[in-house]
């Protein structure tokens, strides 16, 4: 193949060097397009060929780690999960996720999101601390109970939803779709007993009542998490709790070991790897 036959793709990248630039600016580079090239591959090529100091965040390059959320041709998406060919153009504009401060080039400061995430207690809250620290058995959960939160647990904390949300855009106090979706994920986990504790934080001005279902978070989520759904279901829970109509349930107990004689053909469990034997 001659050079002339190589298809080129133009990358407009938003650059910002802290301490040097006063404001971010666009920079354009052309790179050769190879079949199956993702936007992330393109950035690597760009770094190799013409912009060695370009900074971004990525790790797994397979839509699992949530590092590479960027604004690609005006939409928040994962760079590694976006084929250049799927954009339907040979001009790719890449900017850092909006609604987060820019640390450098394409690197957004996600810390405020993670701080809010932590405030909403994204873990099982239970009384049996000893059992949690040193588990003896499993907590009981049916496949049906798993379905109540499974969708929300697919979240990779990439922040794309936060970048798309019009409420986050104007209200720095608003918790945002990612932390709220995760609060709902734990609230609906049958093993969890933390609803009352999270409610204290959630019913405030930063909670789900700031959301008015623009639905953008769900439209951009690269993992199909549908945080808008989680947030509306959370409001429903909060209202029924206020009306004292919320079904009270205790966090699921540990599964008791099966009674009766043990079947011969089942192999013994491997030795424990954690805690006291």
């Amino acid at each position: 193949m001659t050079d002339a036959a190589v298809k080129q793709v133009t990358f407009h990248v938003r650059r910002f060097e802290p301490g040097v630039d006063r404001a971010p600016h666009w920079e354009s580079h052309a790179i050769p397009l190879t079949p199956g090239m993702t936007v992330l591959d393109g950035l690597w090529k760009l770094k190799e060929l013409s912009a060695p100091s370009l900074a971004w965040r990525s790790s797994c390059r397979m839509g699992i780690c949530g590092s590479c959320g960027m604004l690609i041709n005006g939409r928040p998406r994962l760079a590694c999960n976006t084929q250049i060919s799927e954009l339907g153009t040979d001009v790719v504009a890449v900017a850092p996720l909006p609604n987060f401060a820019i640390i450098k080039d394409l690197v957004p400061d996600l810390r405020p999101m993670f701080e809010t995430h932590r405030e909403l207690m994204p873990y099982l809250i239970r009384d049996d601390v000893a059992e949690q620290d040193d588990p003896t058995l499993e907590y009981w959960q049916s496949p049906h109970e798993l379905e109540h939160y499974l969708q929300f647990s697919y979240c990779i904390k990439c922040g794309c939803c936060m970048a798309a949300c019009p409420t986050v855009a104007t209200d720095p106090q608003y918790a945002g779709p990612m932390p709220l979706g995760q609060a709902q994920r734990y609230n609906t986990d049958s093993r969890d007993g933390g609803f009352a504790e999270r409610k204290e934080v959630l019913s405030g001005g930063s909670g789900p009542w700031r959301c008015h279902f623009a639905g953008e978070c769900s439209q951009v989520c690269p993992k199909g998490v549908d945080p808008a759904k989680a947030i509306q279901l959370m409001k429903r829970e909060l209202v029924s709790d206020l009306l004292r109509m919320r079904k009270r349930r205790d966090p699921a107990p540990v599964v008791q070991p099966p009674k009766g004689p043990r079947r011969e053909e089942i192999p013994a469990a491997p030795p424990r790897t954690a805690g006291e034997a």
Partner: protein
Amino acid sequence: MASRAHPNRLGIKGWVAGGRWGFARYMYTLHRLTGLGLLAYFVMHIFVTSTRAIGPESWEQAMEIVSGPLFAFGEYLVFAAFVFHALNGIRLGAIELGFAVGVPIEPVYPYETSVGRTQRLAKAVLMIAFVVAVWGGLDFFIWK
């Protein structure tokens, strides 16, 4: 140490830009704008009607000012904003109580979100009701 990061919050721009430009986003923006418009109207309305307390003359005067075709059109816009805000408010009220958003599902590509499906029907019904009401309003406000 002071942060050297550059602020990048979209602000009001984020009401129209930033994501996938879904239809629901425009309804969100329009809901806020019509809400502000209605608020402005109410303030004006109270101001205008309060002239009656001063005396019949100032009331007549005020009525004169607000009786032109421009104000008739303005009133029509207020009516349209009211219809949209009320209908969309009903939709939002239902949604925010967790109706018509569906139950959690296992996400399988291509993802179907709560914004699609039942929401599409709700939006279509809302739009038809809006057009019918606003069309009917033409008769009352403009061609009276």
